[in-house]
């Protein structure tokens, strides 16, 4: 193996769409580790870090941000053509972000409320993940992404191995760490069971419930969790709101939000809520 030659360094670019830049900031937050990476990869385009502009082709392109406008939609197709490996980073790029909450709302109304001249604002009615438009080769989820997972992905790309980005519930990390479950011991609603691990148990370590910023895990059973919260006495709209977070637009969070009226002005579907609660009613020890 050994170090790659200077002439053979992969070209890496970072592109941004509708996002807060937090994931790009995570790349910068690597600090010294970023320098080590920059010795092995040519970072040719990185708006957060440098005014130097470049263009493709890219061996690896990191994309932050959701697709929210027509211009972005066209641009992402161009970027796809120029990239060997396209990696989406963060909740916006992988799930549409918090701004995807507008996907349940009246877009024109939003524009009119926020902007003095709504007619000057061109945007799609929905904020959507990049994968809805182009083929994505890999993704780093999270809001923001985890620095250690970022380094893991880069290391795997450089050395040729499969990156360790487990698709398992956050609960595994809590238990390995020895954190006491906030839901079981304190009745604090936590989405950890249906959320993908990777954050290092940030929220439960500080006595709050996970709010799903790493997105739904493999085959997440959101309906069961929703039913449990309902039986605990949390009103349906509030349960819906639990799922209406940074990754609300990905299934199965999306359906939970829709059916439970998790967004402003929406009406919960009583039948769905009842079916979810009924899953546990038979064997559930109320209280």
């Amino acid at each position, binding site marked *: 193996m050994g170090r790659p030659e200077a002439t053979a360094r992969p070209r890496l670019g970072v592109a941004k769409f509708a996002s807060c830049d937090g994931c790009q900031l995570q790349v910068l937050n690597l600090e010294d580790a970023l320098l080590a990476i920059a010795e092995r990869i040519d970072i040719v385009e990185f708006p957060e870090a440098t005014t130097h502009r470049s263009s493709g082709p890219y061996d690896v392109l990191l994309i932050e941000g959701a697709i929210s406008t027509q211009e972005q939609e066209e641009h992402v197709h161009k970027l796809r053509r120029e990239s060997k*490996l396209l990696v989406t980073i963060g909740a916006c790029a992988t799930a549409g972000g918090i701004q995807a909450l507008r996907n349940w709302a009246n877009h024109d109304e939003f524009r009119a409320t926020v902007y003095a001249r709504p007619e000057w604002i061109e945007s799609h009615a929905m904020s959507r993940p990049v994968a809805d438009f182009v083929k994505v*080769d*890999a993704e780093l989820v999270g809001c923001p992404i985890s620095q250690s997972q970022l380094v893991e992905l880069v290391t*795997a790309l450089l050395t040729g191995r*499969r*990156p360790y980005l487990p698709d398992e519930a956050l609960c595994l990390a809590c238990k390995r760490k020895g954190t006491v479950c906030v839901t079981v011991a304190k009745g604090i609603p936590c989405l950890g069971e249906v959320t993908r691990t990777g954050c290092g148990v940030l929220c439960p370590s500080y006595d709050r419930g996970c709010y799903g910023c790493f997105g739904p895990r493999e085959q997440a059973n959101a309906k069961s969790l929703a039913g449990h919260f309902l039986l605990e006495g949390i009103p349906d709209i509030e349960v819906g709101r639990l799922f209406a977070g940074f990754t609300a637009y990905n299934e199965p969070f999306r359906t939970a939000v829709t059916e439970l009226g998790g967004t402003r002005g929406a009406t919960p579907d009583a039948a769905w809520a009842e079916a979810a609660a009924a899953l546990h009613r038979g064997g559930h020890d109320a209280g």
Partner: protein
Amino acid sequence: MSDAPDTAARPADEASLVAALNSTWFGANLPPDTQVRLGRLARRYQAPAGTVLLAEGELANELGVVVSGRVSLRTLVPEQGMITILTVEPGDIFGQSAVVPPYRATSSCVALQPVDVIALDGPGLRAALASDCELAAALYPRVLQALARRLSATRLQMLDLFASRQGGKW
């Protein structure tokens, strides 16, 4: 019929025909009078390797029982050329479209090796099957078995079990 196999068909020597039929799993141990009736509908021919015994789409005038040699079933995939989807070994049949409407060959049958074939006349066999219940009772199960065997093979081939399944980059 394109590229007709040895059309200098010898008059069927019934006894040796029946013996040859008996040596195949398709035709083995048929009731004696069935064998005789089939013998009258049969001719036997040999063909060199490379002979197109039946072309895809053309009327299948004969149901062939392979006594020896290998026959390939091929179909045209324009971007890839002729693809062999199955080979028919001694004992097995080809051209069963001769007894299944609309009586057109569903693939091309090409001899891969020199072949020795007992060919049952299509129209004659169809007429005999329609009128002769004992013949029908003896033969249709065999045809069904040959097709069922082929169907289960097709299913396994379709599953592409030996394919390497790498989804995505990792």
